[in-house]
């Protein structure tokens, strides 16, 4: 009779869900990629900002720049989604609020990554033309 068992009794002996390791590895591999990507990104931002609108489009017309900045944004949102997930899980105790925030986190990260990728590639495929 499952209803008479304590929550601890339910969980005892089952072991871990064996899903945590995917999060752990994903966070570290994306962190490793972002180490290089963000150094390049911060350095590039200085020259891109100096070039104004025309300079930014010209910069993005380079396939290397377009690939790296898209990779940076997508990897960044992936890493940020994993990190924010842990923050929500740690501090939000109420189950409904927590679930809503976790779903919202996924939607914002996926939406931000997709929007940025489409915008960057639109400009990149336009060859920097005005």
């Amino acid at each position, binding site marked *: 009779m499952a209803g008479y068992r304590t929550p601890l009794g339910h969980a005892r002996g089952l072991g871990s869900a064996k899903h945590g390791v995917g999060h752990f590895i994903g966070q570290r591999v994306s962190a490793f990629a972002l180490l290089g990507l963000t150094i390049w990104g911060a350095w590039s931002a200085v020259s891109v900002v100096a070039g104004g609108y025309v300079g930014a489009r010209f910069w*993005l017309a380079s396939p290397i720049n377009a690939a790296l900045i898209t990779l940076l944004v997508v990897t960044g949102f992936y890493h940020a989604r994993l990190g*924010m997930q842990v923050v929500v899980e740690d501090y939000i105790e109420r189950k409904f609020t927590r679930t809503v925030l976790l779903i919202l986190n996924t939607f914002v990260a996926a939406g*931000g990554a997709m929007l940025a990728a489409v915008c960057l590639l639109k400009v990149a495929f336009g060859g920097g033309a005005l």
Partner: protein
Amino acid sequence: MAEAPPGARARPLSPHTTIWRWHITMAASILNRVAGVALYLGLLIVAGWALALASGPDAYGAYTGRLGSLVGRVILFGVSVALFFHMANGVRHFAWDLGRGFAPKTADATAWGSFAFAIVAAVALWTVALTNGAL
């Protein structure tokens, strides 16, 4: 979390932030999380920049104009400090994952180093930006 059964005796909790003396490793740990959340905002700013760039010169001018205002620059500088701190502290985590750097003195030194790197790298980046005519 499972609810405690009604009438259960209050059980002792593990020591919490309120009773610990502040220490540099504790500050680095907490601020690493704060920096990560700030960088979420930073990514949204980059996504907004991409949208403005794809939307034409008027939208781009309006967006970069706002980023270039005093409030915008303060936010961007804060994001750059958060980026370099999160980066340096992430390298500490890589070392810990390899089982290194746990000795208290080492952990203290690398925590101070992360803060120092964050300030120095951000100031260096903004100095280059200033001399490069980006600001």
